């Protein structure tokens, strides 16, 4: 798994690629939490994530809760089919704000 952070239109965009599993989710968690407290809305791009497991989902949930406390918006964008399926199975697809594309996400928070 790899990740990349960019500023885009006043937002923080973190894009993951590869598998977020038990092995990589601690890194994903660390990268996500590093954005909390920076003020700008957080957009998580999951287009390159072929696989995400419960530990990856747990990292997303933890970051969502932390960003709420710090008053930051937290969105998932371009969620891959596989990742969306897991969010649906976990009944979390309604808990996260999910946008189809990165642009829609930027528009939604501005």
């Amino acid at each position, binding site marked *: 798994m790899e990740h990349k952070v960019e500023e885009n239109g006043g937002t923080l965009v973190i894009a993951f690629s590869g*598998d977020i*599993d*038990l*092995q990589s989710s601690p890194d994903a968690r660390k990268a996500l939490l590093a954005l909390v407290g920076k003020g700008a809305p957080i957009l998580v791009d999951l287009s390159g994530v072929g*696989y995400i*497991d*419960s*530990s990856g*989902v*747990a990292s997303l949930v933890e970051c969502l809760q932390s960003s709420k406390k710090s008053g930051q918006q937290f969105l998932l964008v371009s969620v891959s*089919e*596989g990742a969306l*399926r*897991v969010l649906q*199975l*976990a009944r979390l697809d309604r808990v996260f704000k999910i946008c189809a594309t990165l642009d829609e996400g930027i528009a939604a928070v501005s």
Partner: protein
Amino acid sequence: MTAETISGEVLSGGAALGVASPSVHDHLELLAEMGRDFASNQDLDVTLKNAVQRITEYVDAEAGALFMLSPCGLKLLCNACVGPVEITGLELAADQGIVGFCVQNDDGKIVRDVADDPNFNAAVDSETGFKTRSILCAPMSVKGERIGAIELINKRGGDGLFDNNDLYLLQALSSSAGLAVLNARMSLQLVEQERVKRELELAAEIQRSLLPPASEASFPVSGVNVPARIVSGDFYDFYPLDDGRIAFTLGDVSGKGMNAALLMAKTASLLRCLGKAIKEPGRLLTLVNTEICETATRGMFVTLVQGIYDPENGHVRLANAGHEPPLVVAPDGSFTAIEAEAPPLGIAPSLLDEDGFPETEFNLNGGRLFVFTDGVTEGYVESGEEFGIDGLKDLICSAGDGGTALVLNAVRARIGETGAPLRDDVTIVAVDDTLRANIGAPQGKAAKAAEAGATGTQGEKLMQLRVSARANRLRLIRNTVKETATFCGFVGSDVGDIVLAVDEACQNVIRHAYGSEGEGDISIELRHRVDAMIILIRDFADPVDISRIKPRDLDDVRPGGLGTHLISEVMDEVDFLPPPIDGGNLLRLVKKIKGTASDGT
């Protein structure tokens, strides 16, 4: 005129009969008529009133009264009277007046002038204004049991005096009246006894309906219940669960009477109703215990064993609430007793709320399980000794492979052979895992697959990999599962779902089964059945010592949370199989292939 008392006994012999007066014929007629009346009339009070009326008229007395002794024997109560003064309801002490004298001495009496008799009670006369001159009185008694007396007052005709013939007649009538009263009382008692007996029989009938019907010989669970009385404080039950497993119960309510029977009915009903939804014996007992503690009569309790048997693999999980330890009989004939780990139901409401009643899990491995009440071990056998736990063990051994039905019948016969009433209810439930071992044919869920045309219940083994239990092996596992699932014919999101479930299950092993990462191996077996893909995931963590059999909180082994939720969401079957012989844990996941014959959806 002097008071003259003539004993009735003098007149009661054959000699008296010999004193044939012209009226004997009429006497006999009156006696016969009143006898018929006593025999036919249902209402005793009306009959007695008629009798007093007739005899008063016949003897030509001014008044007559019938007194009955109260049940405690301390009072005489006027039940019926004829004449100018109504004294029905008048109460005298049991030894008061002429009537009291006659009842106490069980003898008849003629008092020609009451003024000269010290027993005469003048109080009634002074109250009513009636003038009593002479009295004729005869007791009603049957075989020494005093019932009361009939008293006639003031003879009208002739010299105004009662004579011996009058006394003789009154005594004969009193006797038959006494008999009529006694008969009426006895028939009332009989009716009451009949009613109580009938009610008990109805209660017993309802109790029997709470027991399961006799099981077919091929069904692995069976039971017997022989009540010591009409109703029983013991019960047993068994019923199939919707997942193919079989729930079984055996309980013993403290006490033996009707109250025990009612608590038995309540407990059995609660367990049967809740047991179909709550398939965890420990949690089920916790719920029922709370209910019984809240509502049961103080001091009553229930010892109970609640279990679930899986006829597909011989696995048993049970909770024992203060009951006699059930016996596991291994195929080699060795016995293991499963001791109670918790108090009986109805003792402590909150003691176990936190964790529930502890459960014991084990595999019968082709053996048998006997759950029984102390009515079995404490029952007397012909030698006069208690059957005992050793008696039961001997009997099981001598029955050999004869099946549990043979053992149940033998126990019943053995304890009943003295012919004496049972000391306590005799109840046994047996779980027979030899059927599974003997038949070796697919049962339950697997049988359905077999009917659907699958070549075997476990299918063909496609792949097995054994890797170190480390997070960085998960990708390898996922890729292997993905390719195998595609090979089995899965398409679309099903492939990803299977990969997710296996990954999550392996994570659980890595995170929970071993103390730290890489401490042991994980083995994954992928099998293809006609209608499904079967995945067996095994770890080699500390083996569970079956002989030690200790209560185990399943949640320790099966981590809860999101991962487990995901597995159950996507797989059709998720089962923890009994620990393999060399230890570890074995999880079986089944994913049905859509569109195959046995896919019910």
